[in-house]
């Protein structure tokens, strides 16, 4: 059952071969058995999940069901969900029960999906290994000594270990694609503005974007149909007609022009990753695609630009966590300043503090022009590179991450090494483009490798088509970790 696609599950539910309550209970049982080892979930609330499942069954009985009605979906703990503990992976919000639903949650609720639980994540989505979570690291289901990637590591591990039918993630610099790659699943970061950010706890507002994570491009298309759409409560949400993201899945790829950025294939990528990515390109040629050599000359500046802009926005976004109105407050303090200092010193972890300090610094009087303004300028150049590239190709491909999953603790002492794991993904966020990762083989240590597909603005349906055709021709996406 847990190998079924979302479409198959939906068909089974609508045909009453299984009830949503049964399906939900099935996953809850699996989670109870496997989650203690993987730590993919922060919060489970079987009572609320089963109540939703029951309501979904009632809706299924009326024949008014949508594609995802009754299907258990895990939600990254960055999304506020009414009545659910919503921690964002932080001690700062260890006690925050959201009084409202994020737009994405509302969309899933309206579709009749079941909220199966809140998945673990790097604290405030800051991290690439899920080791910064206040609730402990997530283990990679392929090798529990290794990290699942981050920040949507809990989601990636849950999907890979079949602890949910599919799940949501968010991606600020690679937080959907990198863990998808490291856990051997599929993940899509849509064009900036396609999914509402309302109720999604902000890390870096101009980069954050919600997206689906699942086992196949076909599943992602169904999730996108629910998650995407204009929301007037988010001023950066784009007003566009509803679209069916699965409409082009079956189109052949003949004539597809794939751009390979020179800079992505230069030194820095593991040879095992390079091999898997090149094999995937070969497969695409067999499917009728042609290869174009392209250049993204400014992409090498992505990481430094990102580590100015994202911390700058984060330092301000995280100011609301002050211990005054909700969340963590230090148990003992003197005056107001002392309360702020102690609450924030105790409530935030090291990586969050590091980024708040970087962000505060780059916005400071006298440094703003040299850092923030300059980074904004380079950001435009990076985006312009893609505009030029897409004049020559339809999609861009390359590795998602320079290496496969590394060991827990391996990069713990070296933030810069950690930051470089997002070297191929960050430029996409800076440009606001859609990007995805799909499994394309295994590395030397038998860990999954991800192929990154970057599309032009609003080309999600095309990208899903490109991914789906590959997944019809290969079976990397349906491989599962042993022992589950």
């Amino acid at each position, binding site marked *: 059952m847990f190998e079924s696609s979302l479409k198959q599950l939906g068909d089974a539910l609508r045909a009453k071969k299984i009830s949503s309550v049964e399906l939900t209970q099935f996953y809850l049982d699996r989670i109870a058995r496997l989650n203690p080892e993987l730590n993919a979930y922060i919060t489970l609330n079987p009572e609320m999940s089963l109540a939703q499942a029951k309501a979904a069954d009632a809706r299924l009985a009326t024949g008014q069901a949508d594609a995802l009605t009754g299907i258990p979906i895990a939600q990254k703990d960055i*999304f*506020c969900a009414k009545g659910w503990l*919503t921690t*964002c992976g932080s001690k700062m*919000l260890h006690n*925050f029960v*959201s*009084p*409202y639903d*994020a737009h994405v949650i509302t969309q899933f609720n309206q579709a009749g999906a079941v909220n199966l639980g809140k998945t673990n994540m790097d604290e405030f989505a800051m991290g690439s290994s899920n080791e910064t979570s206040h609730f402990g690291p997530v283990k990679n289901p392929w090798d529990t000594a290794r990290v699942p990637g981050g920040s949507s590591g809990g989601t990636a591990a849950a999907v890979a270990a079949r602890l949910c039918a599919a799940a949501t993630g968010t991606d600020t610099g690679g937080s959907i694609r990198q863990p998808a790659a490291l856990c051997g699943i599929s993940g899509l970061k849509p064009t900036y503005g396609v999914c509402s*950010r*309302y*109720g*999604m*706890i*902000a890390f*870096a*507002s*101009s980069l954050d974007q919600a997206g689906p994570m699942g086992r196949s491009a076909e599943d992602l298309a169904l999730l996108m149909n629910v998650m995407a759409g204009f929301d*007037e*409560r*988010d*001023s*950066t949400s784009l007003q566009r007609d509803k679209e069916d993201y699965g409409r082009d899945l079956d189109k052949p790829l003949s004539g597809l022009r794939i751009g390979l950025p020179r800079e992505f294939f230069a030194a820095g990528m593991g040879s095992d990753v390079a091999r898997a990515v090149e094999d995937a390109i070969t497969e695409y040629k067999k499917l009728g695609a042609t290869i174009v050599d392209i250049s993204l000359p400014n992409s090498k500046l992505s990481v430094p630009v990102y580590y100015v802009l994202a911390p*700058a*926005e984060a*330092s*301000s976004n*995280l*100011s*609301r*966590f*002050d211990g*005054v*109105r*909700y969340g963590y407050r230090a148990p003992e303090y003197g005056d*107001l300043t002392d309360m*702020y200092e102690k609450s924030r010193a105790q409530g935030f972890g090291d990586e969050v503090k590091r980024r708040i300090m970087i962000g*505060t610094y780059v*916005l*400071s*009087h006298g440094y*703003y022009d040299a850092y*923030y303004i300059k980074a904004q300028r380079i950001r435009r150049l990076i985006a312009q590179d893609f505009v030029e590239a897409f004049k020559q190709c339809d999609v861009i491909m390359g590795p998602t991450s320079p290496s496969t999953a590394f060991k827990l603790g391996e990069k713990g002492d070296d933030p810069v090494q950690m930051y470089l794991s997002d070297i191929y993904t960050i430029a996409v966020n800076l440009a606001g483009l859609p990007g995805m990762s799909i499994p394309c083989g295994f590395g030397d240590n038998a860990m999954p490798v991800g192929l990154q597909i970057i599309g032009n603005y609003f080309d999600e349906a095309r990208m899903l088509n490109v991914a789906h055709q590959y997944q019809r021709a290969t079976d990397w996406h349906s491989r599962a970790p042993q022992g589950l």
Partner: protein
Amino acid sequence: MTWEIVIGLEIHSQLSTNTKIFSGASTAFGAEPNTQADAVSLALPGVLPVLNKGAVERAIKFGLATGAHIAPRSVFARKNYFYPDLPKGYQISQFDLPVVGNGQIVIQVPAQGKQTAYEKTVRITRAHLEEDAGKSLHEDFHGMTGIDLNRAGTPLLEIVSEPDMRSAAEAVAYAKALHTLVQWIGICDGNMQEGSFRCDANVSVHQPGTPFGTRREIKNLNSFRFLEQAINYEVQWQIATLEDGGTIQQATVLFDPDTGETRVMRTKEDAHDYRYFPDPDLLPLEISEEWKQQIATTLPELPHTKQARYQTQGLSAYDASVLTSSREIADFFEAVLATLSPDPSPASGRGEQATKMCANWIAGELSAQLNRDGLDIAQCPISAQQLGGLLKRIADNTVSNSGAKEVFRVMWAEGGDADAIIDAKGLKQVSDSGAIEKIVDDILAANADKVAEYRSGKDKLFGFFVGQAMKASQGKANPAQLNEILKQKLDG
């Protein structure tokens, strides 16, 4: 030593929208604490701001009314600082790209003695949109501080002037002119007690011909009286300090109305670094030419335009400014004028005299009575039609001026129209020349000695005869006629 005073004002004008600038929560004043604090006002995790179009429209109106540049593209920025009544840890404001820039306002500064005024143009550097903070309540919480976020997110237009004012009187005149204007164009209720209109004053002194002195900013002055007192205190303090050989440190100060003094709140050294940067949650604010045009059609005739028009109709600058001190007074004045002559065109012969009479009565008798009773024009017990009816009877000599004042008093206290009151009180003026001649003849006959004195050169006695005749007519004789007849009989 002569010192020149230099003042610039920053005025926070609360915009009269029903809902907050970035959320749908109500802005109504006086609700129970935190009952108007929605998820956005509370800055819950994940919430986002959405700009209230009504606040933008009001900013555009202000820009149009001050002849300002309205930016086709302006940017909201975050001003970062920690305070418990600032729930997000930053205030959304506008920094280097404000919505309104380079405006000006012409003000009438009352001269000493107050019956005259001089005109002055004050330049407005900029006006920008921003959100208000909540309130910290330091009482009634047993040593703790309560936070009320009802006000958090209320839309403000911060109006910044150039340092163009040279006295407290000019600063007050400017603040009053803005206070009038924002209510006039319907963007702010102007309620200073409720904090809808708050002034910060930047004050410095220098010797003419030398660069401006170091300024100190007096924060949060919520009445014109405090504005004047605070500036005057600050100016004399700065001058005394400098004359004692001291220097002025840039600082933010607070005015204490109880002591009448200002005291330092913070100096430049401990000024915040607000780390302004464009708010990534909000798109740049774009204002099209069409939007501007459409709002321009909703603007009423502005106070300064009206003042100029009134002056071409023969009013003094002072009267014109009094009659345009609020839109309601100007409307009342024009309604009274219309009852005298329904045709408002200058060629209608409505005439300077009628205009002046209306102005005198409204700026004089009516304003004084309103003042005495603590009413504003909207609560005036006499309607424009009633007052017009009375003025008509003055114009056609039915009542004398003193008779008219009596009619006015009755009208104020008991209501009724002028004709009825004149009849009831027997205030009709005697304009029958035969009757007046008889009275004059009787007076002259009874005072033959005084007549002789007058004729031998004691001109001053003319007033005596007028008084006697008026008394004999019980005040009803038409004074002009009486004068003429007396003159004829005495001199003729």
